[in-house]
């Protein structure tokens, strides 16, 4: 008996909350959802484990990490204001920081005190051949040295020697090698950003690698 009333309460409040949500968002009622009600189990929704659609560049009091009850939170600059006029991307902060710097839309200091100090830029591309069918990786030193100092990466994260560094995507995704920055503060690894690094097409005669054994004695 009690359980029945409980469910009654739950259904009542569900209807109420639906009305509330609709009133807040002022959305037209979704006919398809109503038609499907009672047929599709709530356990089988799309994107079950994905986070909710992200509100891009939320102001600090609404971003879920800053405490709106704290006075200082309301003094902080909302990111959208700072990003006005900067080139956009589809990931991270949705700002193309490298392009913004190269276009002169940003003037970040290279020295704490002296705004006139110019960075030590090295223009050298490192090509890393990828074993699998993905395009090869081109690492451009130029945008990296415009922001960073050699000592930030060498020799602790990357040994400055050819073929001395073992890099793979799992290591990057777990926050080592390139992943020390990429995926934390610089552009993250998403399906939209693969080609930013994997940018050099394979030669026309490229074939998937085979082991010595299978080359000598191919399967019949």
């Amino acid at each position, binding site marked *: 008996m*009690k359980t029945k*009333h*409980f*469910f*009654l*309460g*739950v259904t*009542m*409040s*569900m209807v*109420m*909350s639906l009305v*509330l*949500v609709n009133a807040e968002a002022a959305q037209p009622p979704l006919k398809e959802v109503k038609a499907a009600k009672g047929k599709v189990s709530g356990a089988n929704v799309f994107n079950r*484990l994905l*986070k*909710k659609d*992200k509100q891009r*560049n*939320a102001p600090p009091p*609404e*971003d*879920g*990490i*800053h*405490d709106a009850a*704290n006075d*200082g*939170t309301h*003094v*902080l*600059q909302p*990111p959208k204001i*700072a990003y006005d006029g900067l080139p956009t991307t589809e990931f*991270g*902060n949705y700002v193309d*920081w490298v392009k913004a710097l190269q276009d002169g839309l*940003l003037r*970040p*200091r*290279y*020295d*704490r005190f002296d705004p006139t100090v110019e*960075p030590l830029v090295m223009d050298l591309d490192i090509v890393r051949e990828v074993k699998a069918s993905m395009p090869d990786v081109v690492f451009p030193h130029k945008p990296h040295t415009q*922001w*960073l*100092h050699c*000592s*930030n990466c060498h020799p602790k994260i990357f040994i400055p020697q050819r073929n001395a560094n073992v890099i793979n995507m799992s290591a990057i*995704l*777990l*926050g080592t090698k390139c*992943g*020390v*920055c990429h*995926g*934390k*503060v610089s552009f*993250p*690894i998403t399906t939209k950003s693969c080609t930013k690094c994997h940018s050099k097409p394979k030669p026309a005669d490229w074939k998937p690698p085979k082991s010595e054994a299978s080359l000598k004695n191919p399967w019949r």
Partner: protein
Amino acid sequence: MYKSALIGLLSMLAVVMLPQDAQAEYADVVINNYADAAGMRPAVFPHWYHRIRFRCKVCHADLGFKFKAGGNKITMAKIIDGKFCGACHNGEISWSVENCGMCHSGVPGTPTQIHGSTVQRLVAPTYKSLDKKAK
């Protein structure tokens, strides 16, 4: 009867009203090494704001910030001594340490993290920490 209906209503309201996933800016760093224990809100470092004004080199090479959230063991004593944040937040390059609530602005209890990092986006843990013994 009404009591159980009321409980049902409240439980649903709780589900609706619960805070949604944080939507903070990519790379906002929450530092909660000592803040919670000291009764302060955790510090939130807006990485995007600082990169507009300084290149990575200034903090990560000159000032010695390690590339790890919570890995620098920053205390107020060090900041007042002119180290880490205190190298700029001294009333000369930027506002000074009296403005507690400008940094200590996080929701209490928020763990140390880089918001939106790839490891944070993983739906399931990919490996077991070596520190914790399996139950």
